[in-house]
């Protein structure tokens, strides 16, 4: 792309010590269905260029969707001016870590290319969910369904020799199902399935099966659900619940920009400090992995948006804090190299430290072994409400589908068990981790303006001892 090279050249001429240019072209389709009626279709289009520069230790960023040379020149000029002005309100300069850069092209192949499919074929997928849910004996008066696909083409270059071009397609389905039975209402909101790859992945995943399972479980919960047990009990969290827990209480607090205060006015800071590397945060059964390179994952990439090659990262190893998530700016502050966590959601956003696919690494317990010696406990299968404080230490997950465990056996459904616990309390309570790993997609929010990035969260199920559930 000539205009990218032109942008870099001009930025250096205008006085930038470092410059990068990122071109992005996104094309996709979104289809909605509400209560059986097609709600409309969106052709998603986004194309433009973002320029980021360092001048005298100040950082400037500017973007435009006008791809003519004169617009690019204006944007470069602005970015340099902004950076220069910003450098005057800094105590120390922004410095980037040194990295090896590559010239690469990579793409994720689709077996069934969704760009070749007519929208009515995609709509069939939503219709299938609609029909299967209506075929159950559950009363589901509100059904909101969404199909989305997108091909994301990026070219990144910087003044230090990086050239990374990638083409990543993503496909997903989301639903909100509201169950009214026996004068009570329960719902499965924002349940999502998502992959990087072609249409075949979402077809194979059969989201309608999950939807049917969800509404049946909610009906059963309404008719047969009981209150969670009182006092200290044992909890088994499913891969879905383990996933949200590792994302919120491990991934986020290990983002080094957050640790160092850059997100303080928005998503907050962290209970983790740079000096805590090597400190114990959980039992030795706990291993948490962050890996952008999982094939067909929702959070997939091979090079980050600073051109650094991605790799698997152990955030927690044997219960010890092992590694932070870093971009070049914050890695440099610790005298380290970036571990390729810089992501931007659009050409008009700066790359910042993000997760990709975070999971609780598997242990060697079968599910039966996890529950066999539990006298009284709860198995939390899925969750609705969740949140965590802005230092990532006080969290809460409320079960949607959950079951009582009595004398090693799964029993009747449990209504809304509330796990409200500190991060250390949670990970120190784990005494067994299952073998089977599952992943769940989500849109992780951070940054200002907000950058919702696709991530997978998941892992193996885990057993937590001696927990008081709120009721």
């Amino acid at each position, binding site marked *: 792309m000539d205009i990218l090279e032109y942008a870099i050249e001009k930025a250096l001429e205008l006085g930038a010590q470092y410059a990068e240019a990122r071109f992005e072209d996104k094309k996709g389709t979104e289809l909605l269905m*509400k*209560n059986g*009626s*097609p*709600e*409309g*279709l*969106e*052709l*998603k*289009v986004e*194309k*433009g260029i973002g320029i980021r520069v360092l001048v005298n230790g*100040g*950082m*400037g*960023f*500017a*973007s*435009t*969707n*006008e791809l003519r040379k004169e*617009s690019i020149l204006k*944007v470069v000029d602005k970015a340099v001016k*902004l950076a220069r002005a*910003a450098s005057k*309100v800094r*105590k120390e300069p922004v410095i980037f870590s040194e990295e090896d850069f590559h010239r690469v092209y990579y793409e994720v192949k689709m077996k069934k290319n969704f760009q070749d499919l007519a929208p*009515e074929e995609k709509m069939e997928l939503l219709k299938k969910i609609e029909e299967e849910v209506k075929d159950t004996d559950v009363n589901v008066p*509100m059904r909101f369904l969404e199909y989305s696909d997108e091909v994301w083409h990026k070219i990144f270059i910087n003044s230090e020799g990086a050239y990374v071009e990638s083409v990543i397609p993503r496909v997903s389905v989301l639903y*909100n*199902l*509201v169950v009214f039975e026996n004068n009570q*209402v329960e*719902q499965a*909101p924002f349940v999502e399935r998502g992959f990087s790859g072609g249409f075949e992945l979402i077809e194979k995943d059969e989201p309608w099966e999950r939807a049917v399972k969800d509404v049946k479980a909610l009906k059963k919960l309404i008719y047969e659900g009981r209150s969670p047990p009182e006092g200290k009990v044992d909890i088994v969290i499913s891969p879905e619940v383990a996933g949200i827990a590792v994302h919120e209480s491990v991934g986020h607090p290990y983002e080094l920009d957050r640790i160092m*205060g*850059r*997100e303080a*006015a*928005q998503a907050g800071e962290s*209970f983790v400090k740079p000096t805590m590397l090597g400190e114990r945060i959980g039992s030795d059964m706990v291993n948490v992995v962050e890996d952008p390179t999982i094939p067909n994952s929702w959070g997939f990439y091979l090079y980050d948006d600073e051109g650094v090659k991605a790799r698997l990262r152990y955030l927690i190893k044997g219960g010890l804090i092992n590694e932070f998530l870093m971009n070049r700016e914050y890695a440099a502050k610790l005298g380290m190299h970036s571990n390729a966590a810089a992501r931007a959601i659009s050409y*008009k956003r*700066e790359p910042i430290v993000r997760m990709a696919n975070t999971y609780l690494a598997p242990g060697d317990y079968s599910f039966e072994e996890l529950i066999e010696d539990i006298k009284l406990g709860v198995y939390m299968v899925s969750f*609705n*409400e*969740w*949140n*965590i*404080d802005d230092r990532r230490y006080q*969290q*809460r997950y409320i079960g949607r589908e959950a079951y009582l465990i009595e004398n090693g056996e799964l029993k009747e459904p449990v209504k*809304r068990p509330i796990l409200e616990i*500190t991060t250390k309390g949670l990970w120190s309570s784990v005494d067994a981790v299952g073998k089977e790993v599952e992943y769940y997609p989500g849109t992780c929010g951070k940054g*200002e*303006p*907000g950058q919702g990035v696709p991530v997978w969260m998941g892992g193996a199920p885990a057993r937590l001892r001696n*927990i*008081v*559930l709120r009721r």
Partner: protein
Amino acid sequence: MIKMFEINEFILKKAKEMGFGDVVVMGKESNRRQVRFANNEITVAKLWHEKEADLFVEMDKRIAGTTITDMSKENIEETLKALQATLKNMEPKKDYFGIAEGPFEYRDIPETFDGRIVELDEPNEYVERAINKAIEEGAKRVAGVLYTDHNKFYLSTSNGVEAMDEGTGIEISVRAFIGDLESGHGTNSSRMLSKFDPESAGEKAGYIASMARNPEQGPEGKFSVIFDPLAIANLLTYVGFMSSAYAAEAGFSFFINKLNKKVASERVTLRDMGNMPNGYGTRKFDDEGVPTKETLLIDRGIFKTFLLNTSMAKKYGVKSTGNAGMLQPHPWNIILEPGEFEKEEIFSDLKRGIYITNVWYTRFQNYVTGDFSTIPRDGMFLVENGEMKPIRNIRVSDNMLRILENIEALSNQLQHVHWWEVSVPVSTPYVLVKDVGITRATK
């Protein structure tokens, strides 16, 4: 210079030739500037320049939308062809009833445009002033963000609307820290430079942080809670979202089946106001060209209407509230009517309770019943006989309708809140709510 209305005209003409029915084109030209800061220094400065047109088309009750960024005639024709091909075999939306019938007359809304903001060369001094004010109040580390906005909207529809609006804005959000656990937050948003007060945001952030020194683990149970405007604004954003008829139909609202029923204490009157002078969300017209107006959502405790576009209004046999977005209705500025109390009276009359200065991460277990929790952040205080003791690590765990029902007192001054956690601007007083559920971690 590309003339936006000429592009709109071209799109409408082509769309008509190709057999489309209802067509809406919203041309937008925006210049947005951001200065982010943390640890008392600027972390990044940004500028966005965007020119694009949002497009809505209908063909035999099949509807679609897209955004056009390349304004060349070739690309516009290609986009329309793609939309036509896409819609051809789709099933119709059974409950589509059209867009508004124009033309309309529009009034200028006071205090929505200020040429001084357009001409402002460099806003870093406002950042420095806010940081310095927070430090004066006792802060050690100050973080935040400043924006300047200049937007132009060019709306044309196949139903005879041609409307233009131009607006500006400047706003700042400041968070001040002393230690790890002691912080405060202040914001200030204005459409006019003369009414912009960055120091007030820095001062409040620094003041709350200073008051919050040495917090102790907070209690759990039921408490009377004074919500700062920043905190209640967060909850009212969700009330606003759930007032949309679209949210209700999609199962994301606790106002489902609540029309003309009591949903709040009689003390509560809540409006949406698209034409609010100096409102950060204010615009002359909605996405169909209907002039924006004031809409009573809750009148002395009774839920009066959902927010509607023309199609949904026709479906329910009422009039549009002037809240159309391209696909679904949404609020512009939410306003909770003030009460009769001085802020100080509310604090001094509280024998035992909690003062929450800010919240974030509001999430619902059940949107239809309104069961939710949210997490206080920044200064939070146990109030006992007029004395404030800093506390930490608590959660508001309750039900939205119960909170609205349990509102006991409102202060007599409004604050206009708009920041990262409050995406739709909210004007609100201090609010006292009784019997609020407060929880904390069990391990």
